[in-house]
């Protein structure tokens, strides 16, 4: 509850500070301070201390797993603000409002990590999505940004409609908004005895959640929106928000997947294979690094879906590790991408000569995204696949995933190749010393988690 209240309050504070302070460069520091306060409030909650005691009437349920995910999301946002805060200020003329919207997105994220009913799920998803529609269109003079924003709004509202339809059907079938229906009775044929309305509703919910995390075949909005949105906000959308979507997805279907019987695994394996296929194969053909990262985020979504497929404790650890590894690496790559003058692959030619530090950090981030050992991405992928193996019964899907991970190495390495082995003079905007240090810290963190994933996971059990 702490994180929900504090993030909403911080959003209001940021909004009002836009009127009080005329100095635009102050906002970044204010937002960073606000995030630290939010982090402290969230950590206090994990030790059982509350800002205000609220009776949620069982609509919200707080547990360590969710609170720890909040911590990851807040830290990722803090790193994001520290690295790219200046670029947020340069995007438009309303920096205070952008930061306020980022805090509201975090409020939605914290609701999604603790919802205990479909009503709160809906509210969380909407609080997370609506500020994003606006951030996508923040660059008002740019036609592509406008198009992306409108596209995102229309498609997003359509998927919200599907979600509401699903919730209505589930309510009709079970008579409650709860997400813990208990183990259903089995009929003779091994088919769970649940209302058909519930099953149809669950399928609709599945579709709309797939849309939110951009799993194929509901991914069509992703490349256009990620490509059109201002790069700073793409970075936020592709990391914290996406990981939170997965967390909600997992929390929602953790106990409900039994209700769908064997259909669930068939449906999910189809979506996983389609997502891996579309994401990886299309990313290979991209010339723009930004668009390539959009497709790669679809491909990464395919890996995160394994957590749903396995649905055991190892998968829970895995999704935390994956969220941290993926967010850190993507924020790092995007922070560099924002500084580039040219977003195409050729624009990265010879970056290692002009900006060796940037090239090094980008390389480590890309290695992590492709899952090379000694980086966080390796253990993230390893935990996901190990969870599926442990759950048993589907070795073929693990083999397919490993093959697609190999494909992903190709397009990530093309960027590295361009930076180190091609001649050119990559142009960047002005790079400060602080930015370089921050980037190296991110890279260091990725390697640290890659060497000792227990650093992150042990904390989970305290």
């Amino acid at each position, binding site marked *: 509850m702490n994180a929900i209240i504090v993030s909403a309050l911080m959003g209001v504070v940021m909004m009002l500070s836009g009127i009080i302070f005329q100095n635009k460069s102050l906002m970044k520091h204010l937002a960073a301070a606000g995030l630290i306060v939010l982090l402290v409030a969230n950590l206090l909650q994990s030790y059982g201390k509350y800002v205000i005691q609220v009776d949620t*009437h069982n609509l919200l349920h707080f547990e360590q797993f969710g609170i720890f995910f909040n911590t990851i999301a807040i830290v990722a946002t803090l790193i994001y603000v520290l690295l790219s805060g200046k670029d947020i200020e340069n995007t*438009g003329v*309303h920096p205070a409002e952008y930061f306020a919207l980022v805090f509201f997105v975090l409020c939605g994220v914290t609701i999604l990590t603790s919802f205990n009913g479909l009503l709160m799920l809906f509210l969380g998803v909407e609080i997370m999505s609506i500020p994003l529609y606006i951030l996508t269109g923040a660059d008002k003079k740019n036609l592509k940004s406008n198009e992306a924003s409108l596209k995102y709004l229309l498609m997003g509202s359509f998927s919200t409609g599907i979600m509401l339809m699903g919730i209505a059907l589930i309510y009709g079938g079970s008579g409650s908004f709860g997400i813990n229906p208990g183990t259903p009775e089995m009929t003779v044929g091994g088919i769970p005895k649940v209302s058909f309305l519930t099953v149809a509703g669950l399928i609709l919910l599945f579709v709309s959640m797939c849309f939110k995390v951009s799993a194929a075949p509901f991914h069509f909005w992703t490349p256009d929106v990620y490509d059109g949105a201002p790069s700073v906000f793409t970075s936020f959308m592709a990391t914290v928000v996406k990981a939170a979507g997965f967390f909600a997805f997992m929390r929602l279907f953790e106990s409900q997947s039994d209700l769908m019987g064997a259909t669930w695994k068939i449906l999910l394996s189809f979506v996983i294979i389609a997502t891996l296929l579309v994401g990886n194969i299309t990313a290979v053909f991209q010339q723009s690094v930004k668009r390539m990262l959009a497709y790669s985020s679809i491909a990464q979504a395919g890996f995160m879906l394994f957590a749903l497929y396995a649905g055991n404790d190892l998968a829970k650890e895995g999704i935390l590790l994956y969220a941290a590894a993926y967010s850190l690496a993507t924020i790092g790559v995007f922070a560099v991408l924002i500084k580039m003058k040219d977003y195409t692959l050729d624009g990265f030619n010879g970056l290692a000569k002009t900006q060796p530090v940037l090239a090094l950090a980008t390389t480590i981030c890309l290695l992590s995204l492709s899952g090379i050992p000694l980086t966080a991405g390796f253990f993230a992928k390893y935990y996901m696949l190990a969870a599926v193996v442990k759950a048993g019964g589907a070795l073929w899907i693990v083999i397919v995933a490993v093959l697609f991970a190999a494909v992903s190495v190709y397009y990530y390495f093309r960027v590295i190749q361009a930076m180190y082995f091609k001649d050119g003079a990559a142009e960047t905007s002005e790079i400060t010393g602080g930015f370089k240090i921050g980037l190296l810290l991110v890279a260091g963190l990725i390697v640290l988690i890659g060497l000792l994933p227990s650093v992150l996971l042990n904390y989970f059990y305290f």
Partner: protein
Amino acid sequence: MNTTEILFFFLSALALFSAIMVLISKNPIHSVLWLVAVFFAISGHYILLNAQFLAIVNMIVYAGAIMVLFLFVVMLMNLNSETEPQKNLWMKLAGVISGGCFLMVFVSLVRQATDLHAKKAMTSTGDIGLIKNLGKLLFSDYVVPFEITSVLFLSAMIGAIVIGKKE
């Protein structure tokens, strides 16, 4: 068949007919007006369920405010048959197939949901939709989502200003 049942079937038929007309009207203004008819029919259902407050709110907010907004947008966009984009045949075919599959799922759902056959709506007996009970519920069991909705509205308002403000 008593009056309630007659009314129920009349309103259902009206709602379905109007909903189909929304889809097949060539003129977007007619579509919007048929949608108003759908909302009135649904409000009628709410009254049958003894939920007067919901019925009135549905009429004021949906049939009133939102539909007026729709009408203005449709008029300002100046849609007519010439500006309508031509969809290709495969697109239409894919739409028909996927929509048909969805319809099939729903038809079989209603037929096979035997647990629902015995249940009947609480016509004119339930009092959960009365404003007194609704208010009590909203400020006791559902007070947390009620308050959290304010964050949603606040972010939407900030967004509207950020997008709409002249630079």
